[in-house]
């Protein structure tokens, strides 16, 4: 059976009943191991001292924040091209999760910034473009909330997501152009040696996996809920019209 089978709400519900709990367990495992290992069984960093440990929350949430938007981008595309309601609802369901990750990233970053840079906020390109990402999330969610008719809302938010992504990338580079920052480069780049050492890296990867599965589980649960809501709405709608 093809992947598109799950575009059928009913099939998707069945799938999510099976997948979501597993993903949730994996999330608990990954986050548990990763964070505990990271917090209690890694040495302090010679530069950052024990504050480095915030990395195990900060990096994964920041990474997931960007990934969540990517997922929404794909889901929106699928909706616009193949009109599969589930994918539209999945995008809707993912947005608040992504926003939460973004805010966690911002907060932990700010907390980290205090000791590291002596200021909670610095107009660093990466931080700033992250803030912009946060704004895109808010706009997207607000548009969903503002529109009455669910299909129209799905259409419009999808268009917004596509166009928004392009401009998000644009402003990412514009921001680099605008100011050179003091923020780290990518940890999870292929040549990882370049910036942080294995002792920090392994637990970071594990908790990142944990965060990833958490995202998957939440999106599944929320999408299922959205489907139920839509089901309810359309029943009410039909009653009204009858």
């Amino acid at each position, binding site marked *: 059976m093809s992947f598109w089978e799950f575009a059928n709400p009913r099939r998707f519900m069945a799938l999510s009943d099976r997948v979501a709990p597993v993903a949730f367990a994996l999330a608990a495992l990954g986050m548990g191991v990763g964070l505990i290992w990271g917090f209690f069984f890694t040495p302090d960093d010679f530069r950052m001292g024990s504050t480095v440990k915030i990395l195990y929350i900060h990096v994964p949430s920041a990474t997931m924040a960007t990934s969540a938007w990517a997922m929404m981008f794909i889901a929106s595309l699928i909706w616009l091209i193949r009109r599969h309601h589930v994918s539209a609802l999945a995008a809707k369901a993912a947005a608040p999760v992504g926003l939460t990750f973004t805010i966690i990233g911002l907060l932990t970053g700010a907390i980290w910034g205090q000791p590291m840079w002596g200021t909670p906020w610095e*107009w660093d390109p990466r931080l700033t473009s992250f*803030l912009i990402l946060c*704004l895109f999330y808010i706009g997207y969610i*607000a548009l969903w909330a503002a529109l009455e008719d669910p299909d129209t809302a799905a259409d419009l938010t999808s268009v917004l997501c596509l166009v928004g992504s392009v401009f998000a990338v644009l402003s990412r580079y514009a921001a680099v152009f*605008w100011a050179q920052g003091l923020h780290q480069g990518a940890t999870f780049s292929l040549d990882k040696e370049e910036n942080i050492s294995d002792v920090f890296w392994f637990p970071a990867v594990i908790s990142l996996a944990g965060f990833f599965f958490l995202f998957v589980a939440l999106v599944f649960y929320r999408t299922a809920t959205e489907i139920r809501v839509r089901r309810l709405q359309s029943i009410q709608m039909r009653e009204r019209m009858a």
Partner: protein
Amino acid sequence: MIGLIARDLKMAVRAGGGFGLSLAFFLIVVVLAAFAIGPDTGALREVAPAVLWIGALLACLLSLDRMFALDWEDGSLDLLATAPLPLEGVVLAKAVAHWLTTALPLTVAAPVLGLLLNIAPEAVGWLVLGLLAGSPALSVIGAFGAALTVGLKRGGLLLSVLVLPLYVPTLIFGVALVEDRAVPTLGLLAGITLFSIAALPFAGAAALRMNLR
């Protein structure tokens, strides 16, 4: 009157003009200011109070020309004008609803935004006080301007050209307050607000009547 305020708030929220959205708006204003002025925090701190006050002006202006225009277009204004509530009350109610949806969120968020623009911590308190005392004037003055231009389609720019000059005193004292942190300045700010609230609803109502006939 409460009913009218409640209705306007409800409609604002439904149209996605809710509390959270205004917060997002101010966040954007701050970010844009940072982009426009440049990353170095020194320069930013300089203009921080200006940025926040300009943000308040903006939020006002943006939601202003819809204040009466919608009610005018769908005929509600005729009905309100013949309703028991005097037009003065209508203008005031509109202004209050407008303040609650635009200026209040800013006032609440000011400390955080101040952090982003790293304003001196001791100045933040004054900033909030200033916004509390000054921003109602913005809404009431705005309501008066909206009443003047209600007849015109797309009066957006005209409205702001009429209203912005009236905003100057509030702006000056508001910004000054953050620098000099003096009670008298706060008093002046409050004075302007009180005067506006006392006088402008009548002017606004008169303007509406003229536009309706």
